[in-house]
């Protein structure tokens, strides 16, 4: 049966055996443990993910002074909320407005702001997105993501070539004036913080 990690080079069974072999050697050499694997998986499956970025966005929508701090120094502002760490040591938040739409990419590898978005989806790491979003962002957003950006809105692509980690502050949707930060956070999608999709509407 086909598995999601089968490729034209190796089957899931082959990759699994290879990794297990390497793992067994690293365990014997005192470098790895299965408990460390389990803990790391638990962190990024259950603790660190886009729900954290959504909390930051919702606070920025409801607290203008926080938003100012977030746009000035995103890592420091996120630390106020207990959010930060690996692959987000120096984060930069870029703001969408009526005239500017932002999106992030890493054309050279797959850099991504883990502390607020978790680990990247596979499409973000695969060649198509990395190759095309810098060259034809309007086409990719419209055709591949079903998320067209009007011609009069400037599209800004942030290619994460250094250890700075960019991510997007989407616009607060209309009709949410009565919602609190908790309800607003539920509207914020991972894709809206990458810049390839909308926030939900209430």
């Amino acid at each position, binding site marked *: 049966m086909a598995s999601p990690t089968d490729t034209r080079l190796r089957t899931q069974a082959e990759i699994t055996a290879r990794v297990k072999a*390497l793992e067994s050697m690293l365990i014997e050499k005192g470098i790895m443990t299965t408990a460390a694997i389990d803990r790391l998986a638990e962190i990024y499956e259950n603790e660190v993910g886009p729900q954290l970025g959504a909390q930051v966005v919702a606070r920025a929508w409801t607290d203008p002074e926080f938003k100012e701090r977030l746009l000035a120094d995103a890592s420091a502002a996120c630390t106020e909320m207990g959010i930060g760490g690996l692959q987000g040591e120096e984060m930069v938040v870029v703001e969408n407005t009526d005239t500017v739409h932002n999106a992030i990419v890493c054309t050279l590898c797959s850099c991504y702001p883990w502390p607020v978005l978790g680990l990247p989806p596979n499409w973000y790491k695969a060649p198509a997105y990395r190759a095309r979003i810098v060259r034809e962002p309007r086409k990719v957003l419209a055709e591949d993501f079903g998320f067209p950006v009007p011609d009069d809105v400037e599209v800004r692509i942030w290619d994460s070539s250094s250890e700075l980690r960019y991510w997007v502050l989407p616009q607060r949707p209309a009709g949410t004036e009565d919602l609190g930060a908790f309800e607003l956070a539920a509207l914020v999608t991972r894709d809206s913080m990458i810049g390839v999709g909308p926030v939900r509407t209430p």
Partner: protein
Amino acid sequence: MNGVFDLGSTESMGKVQTVENEPVFRAEWEKAAFAMFSNCFRAGFFGVDAFRHSIEKMDAAEYLLSNYYEHWVHVVEDRGAQKGVIDPAELEKRTQFFLENPDAPLPEREDPDLLAFVNAVVKSGAPANRPTDKVARFKVGDRVTILADSPHGHTRRARYIRGRTGEITAAHGGAIYPDSAGNDGPEAPEHLYTVRFTAEELWGPETAEPNNIVYFDVWEPYLTLAS
């Protein structure tokens, strides 16, 4: 180096394949491959720049056809062999064993210090900014051109920005220089800047999409003042 990993603007890459509700890890082996990065970083296999360069040196066709976490496994094999920790012949032998005995257990070992490291590093990270006494040669607002030559070894000077001119929009102070650290040299900090390029400058007015900007971070040695 000029390699297939440097994907910006490459054509014939197909559509973006999004997957609804994709799990964080699609298989158990992806969890182990992911954990190898921080565990082997702690063991001195690589820094993040050397890690990336090991992936860049993969066979080009294999790079494009394999899974993302297979790239990470490649690094551990490559750097582990260089460090004398992973014997490639032994790895082949064990791979065969686990293919024939997929349910055979892994060795058991406990290491509370490693677990503490994992919890700490996720929270604290490993910052790459480095104070430097060097005087910055450029400032926000300067128009700069990216040097067009093709360095060997690791660099973050992507091909699509080489020879192109843009404006510095932010100056970030010193940061580890990947062109040194990624080639197993010292950290050798250099000033880091963000440069704003118009799509017309990058792709030419004939094919550039309208009203489109690309920002790219560069280290000072990549730059010269625009003439």
